[in-house]
């Protein structure tokens, strides 16, 4: 590994909650940029999974136009799922997580900061990459816009729900497969509404209600998921 070792910010008694969250967030971003390959892998995976469909099913423009949005959504979902293993694993292995649990600041807020950092480093790049892949999948212009919007609202939900699964399976054998088994059922509603929005938009139907529902998912996940992952983390820590 190159570069200086990352200093763990002193998240201590005198630090405000917001300060602690910011420190955790910045540290995660800094650590991620020291390991650039880990940042790149989910994106490469995303592009490759999308590539499989025209080659494996059909390169016909009519098929891709109809299925493209769904394929992009599924691929984004899978690459978020793949990246979740990193969310707590390294911090768990080197003991950082234990220190976070011991902080006086509420754990769920620190977990929220970690999850937001995770989204910014995996979900957001996926959204930025989507227009390019959308064009390759022959999506019409306004569909690409809506698709990006749904992914922008949807990927943080995926990260937040995923953090629960990552916390539950922390330190277990075959955690990767188990994580997918636990989390995919919970991802299905997000996927349904995400692709439903794009389908409605391509038929010219109003999408306001769909987007409002996705926003509701986001706020529900934002308020409840950190509690669940924080308590799951405590359970997993006491287990090891």
């Amino acid at each position: 590994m190159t570069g200086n070792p990352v200093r763990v910010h002193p998240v201590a008694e005198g630090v405000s909650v917001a300060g602690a969250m910011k420190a955790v967030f910045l540290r995660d971003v800094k650590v991620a940029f020291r390991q650039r390959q880990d940042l790149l892998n989910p994106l490469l995976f995303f592009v490759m999974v999308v590539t499989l469909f025209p080659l494996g099913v059909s390169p016909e423009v009519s098929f891709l136009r109809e299925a493209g949005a769904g394929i992009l959504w599924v691929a984004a979902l899978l690459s978020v799922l793949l990246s979740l293993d990193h969310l707590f694993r390294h911090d768990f292995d080197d003991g950082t997580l234990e220190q976070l649990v011991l902080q006086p600041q509420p754990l769920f807020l620190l977990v929220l900061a970690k999850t937001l950092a995770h989204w910014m480093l995996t979900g957001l790049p996926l959204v930025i990459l989507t227009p390019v892949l959308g064009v390759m999948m022959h999506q019409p212009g306004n569909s690409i816009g809506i698709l990006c919007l749904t992914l922008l609202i949807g990927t943080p939900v995926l990260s937040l729900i995923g953090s629960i699964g990552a916390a539950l399976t922390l330190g277990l054998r075959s955690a990767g497969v188990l994580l997918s088994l636990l989390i995919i059922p919970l991802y299905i509603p997000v996927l349904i509404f995400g692709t439903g929005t794009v389908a409605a938009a391509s038929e010219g139907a109003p999408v306001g209600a769909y987007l409002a529902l996705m926003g509701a998912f986001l706020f529900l996940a934002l308020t409840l998921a950190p509690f669940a992952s924080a308590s799951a983390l405590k359970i997993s820590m006491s287990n090891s």
Partner: protein
Amino acid sequence: MWQFFHKLGSPKWFYGIATRLMPWLLVVGAALLLAGVVWGLAFAPKDYLQGNSYRIIFIHVPTAFLAQSVYIMMAVAAVVTLVWRMKLADVFVKAVAPVGLVLTFLALFTGAVWGKPTWGTWWIWDARLTSMLILLFLYGGVIALDRAINDEKSAARAVSVLVLVGVVNIPIIKYSVEWWNTLHQPATFKLTEKPSMPAEMWVPLLLSVLGLYFIFGWLACLRMQTEIIFREQRTRWVKDLVMAGRP
């Protein structure tokens, strides 16, 4: 009241109660289920639209009903596990999850068998069917997580968190037939309204639902007893119990 609560937490006390309760649960459950199913399958009138094929409702509705209510019971037990750390609640979740899985599978299977003659297809990606499929996955996830964690206490608490997170699916299943336009018909029983079927149809249906509840109670007791014996194998009362069974 509090004494009762404390007793409820004692596996030994529960074991004794369950032993006394189980024959009754089995007899009443079997009688109700048999009455409901035989009445429904052989004597209830034909449906004017679906003919005889509707009769699978007498198996489909009870299993689907139980599949959801077992999950709700598990969720209640999960809260009890997390808040009061009561051993029995955790034993219940562990014992009952596979039963829920099987019930969900049966509901989906009988639904598919019913769908073929009435809708002309085994499966459609309709909201009700999909949300039941998600329920099946959730049961699978609960069982998988429980098996993956070796430590009994952490397993209990981790599984409880997962069960509670999965509860979001229950209202989706319940209201899927009302929120979306689906092929699936709306609920058969509602607490607030009179059933839309004639009494010769809904009475046997109600009997089989109740019967299956009793059978489920019996099965839950049986599986919980097995789990309790396994967990408490080092205690004196379990040793005495096992030795007393020997000739």
